[in-house]
């Protein structure tokens, strides 16, 4: 840790700057992110959703929904007598066509979006980073094969590839994670490859080769840690894209199976009542937008802090 991280004295600006250059990249990024209000908003939304996901998972699988039922309402219990009620104090987001409280269903829907977003991007980044680094490190025929394979995946529009994969795999949480994971692999492969190509030419990489380190160690322990910056930025934007894509798949009826509430499915179920029940359309959509906005804000700030030159956002 650096001793002087923040200074209020204008005369010590230069010192603070020098100090900052000696601090690690992680400290530099964290301090920049802390100073930007937009970044803090983004980070807060992301952290809040992750916590919410953990709490709802515990409530759903260990507590059998007692927590949410005690605090608010049961997200699964139907009350036909309360169907399509406009927002009131008891039901701040109104009720759906089966009389279920929309607020608790929006809260419960968060976990699907977050789980799909985070896990599909985790899958995409692991596979993509592996393909990208091997391509860049070995070059020639390996590079050619790896990158043409990525070109094939990129020759389909993202959502269409996801739809085709879902048509083959069938509905279900694991299948969406896999389908969206495959869709975002090329983005990570390309980012990793271009970063790895420049790292490979650095002196420390030559040194590692001269000393006789095995290739695997050079890639994993020497080169990859220096390539992580753009990969992390890309992962943040990709989570935002994956959450939108999951919602779109659910909206089309290709998502997880009911009765698990998801934001996309709620919009699809509410569509027939669009003229009678605006709240049914408004709140699940707002939830998607705020979530995606949070990850995009975080991505923007991380990119500015880590790598101001980088422009990529992946495919929408």
């Amino acid at each position, binding site marked *: 840790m650096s001793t002087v991280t923040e200074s209020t004295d204008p005369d010590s600006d230069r010192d603070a700057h020098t100090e900052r250059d000696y601090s690690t990249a992680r400290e530099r990024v964290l301090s920049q992110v802390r100073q930007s209000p937009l970044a803090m908003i983004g980070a807060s939304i992301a952290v809040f959703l992750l916590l919410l996901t953990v709490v709802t998972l515990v409530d759903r699988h260990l507590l059998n929904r007692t927590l949410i039922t005690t605090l608010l309402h049961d997200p699964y219990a139907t009350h036909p007598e309360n169907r399509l009620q406009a927002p009131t104090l008891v039901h701040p987001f109104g009720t759906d066509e089966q009389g279920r409280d929309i607020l608790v269903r929006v809260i419960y829907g968060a976990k699907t979006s977050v789980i799909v977003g985070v896990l599909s991007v985790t899958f995409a980044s692991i596979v993509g980073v592996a393909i990208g680094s091997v391509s860049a490190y070995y070059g020639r025929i390996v590079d050619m094969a790896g990158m*043409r*394979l990525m*070109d*094939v*995946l990129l*020759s*389909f*529009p*993202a*959502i*269409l*590839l996801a*739809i*085709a*994969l*879902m*048509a*083959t795999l*069938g509905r279900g949480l694991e299948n969406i994670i896999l389908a969206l994971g495959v869709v975002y692999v090329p983005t990570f492969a390309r980012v990793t490859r*271009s970063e790895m190509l420049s790292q490979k030419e650095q002196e420390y990489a030559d040194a590692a080769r001269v000393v006789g380190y095995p290739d695997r160690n050079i890639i994993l322990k020497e080169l990859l840690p220096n390539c992580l910056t753009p990969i992390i930025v890309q992962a943040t934007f990709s989570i*935002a894209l994956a959450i*939108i894509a999951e*919602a*779109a798949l659910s*909206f*089309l*009826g*290709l998502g997880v199976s009911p009765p698990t509430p998801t934001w996309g499915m709620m*919009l699809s179920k509410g*569509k027939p009542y*669009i*003229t009678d029940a*605006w709240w049914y*359309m*408004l709140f699940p*959509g707002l939830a*998607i*937008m705020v979530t*995606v*906005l949070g990850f*995009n*804000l975080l991505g*923007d700030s991380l990119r500015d802090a880590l790598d101001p030159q980088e*422009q990529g*956002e992946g*495919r*929408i």
Partner: protein
Amino acid sequence: MSDSNDLLFYVGKRFLWAVPVLLGASFLSYILIHLAPGDPAQIILGRRATQEQLAQLRQEMALNKPVYVQYWRYLSDAAVGDLGRSYRSQQKVATMIAQRLPYTLQLAVGSLIVALGIGLPTGIYASLNRNEFGDHVSRIVALLGISIPNFWLGLMLILLIAVHVGVVPIYGMTLVTENVLAGFLSTLLPAVALGTALTALIMRMLRGSLLDEINKGYVQTANAYGIAEHEIMYVYVLKNGLLPTITVIGLQLGYLLGGSVVIETVFGIPGIGQMTLDAIFKQDFPVIQGVVLFVATVFVAVNILVDTLYAFLDPRIRLGGEST
């Protein structure tokens, strides 16, 4: 070598590169559908078919042959524009695509017009007025634009405008070739819904790349020579700054084709997107396969076109510079 020869060479090379990619795409779309659950013969003949009928159909469709034989058959048919027949309607898939395509194209072109019409001027405006009020507003709008799901925006537009204001229809689409005004009105909301994300992306890209250009040395030099600011901006900076944005637009045209599946469902537009979704729920695999292959081919062709345009505008690329 002359300039036009360079360009021809570049375009030729680009075309050759597309061949393995398209072969891969056709194989992937074939194998995906091949792996999908369900026996094609059973799907076509229904539950009441006898074992003999099923066996005979499997024979006719070469379903007993090895996968590579079936794939080769599919590929050689596809090469001459035969994408097979629908399991359900027995119609030719190529004909079905041709009938639905005008709607999807009208939606995609409309969205592109929205994206360029709003994205380009606001991107330029934001970079000229950096850190001023208008810049902040446009950046926030752009951030919201990339965060809003297109289908939800579509639903909100239906709710706010189509239902309460009227004028524009809530459902379906008229082709501009049939009725210009009705075509325009029925495309307006879906095009805004689909085009907003692209608009926002163009705004963000253009602002970034123009700001990069403004900070380059040649702008200072031009300033020092006393060239008028608007001339520097519109003659030099804009030309260079537009290039990366063109690439982005080219890459994202695939988004317009893919996103149309979702938007067509929201607005009840009878394009290829809705046809694909219907086919998925009816397990009509030749239709899914045909659309996926068709869209991939169009997408690859558009990318070659964009690269050619890029090479035409920027000699560095066709003269062997690395395009990353």
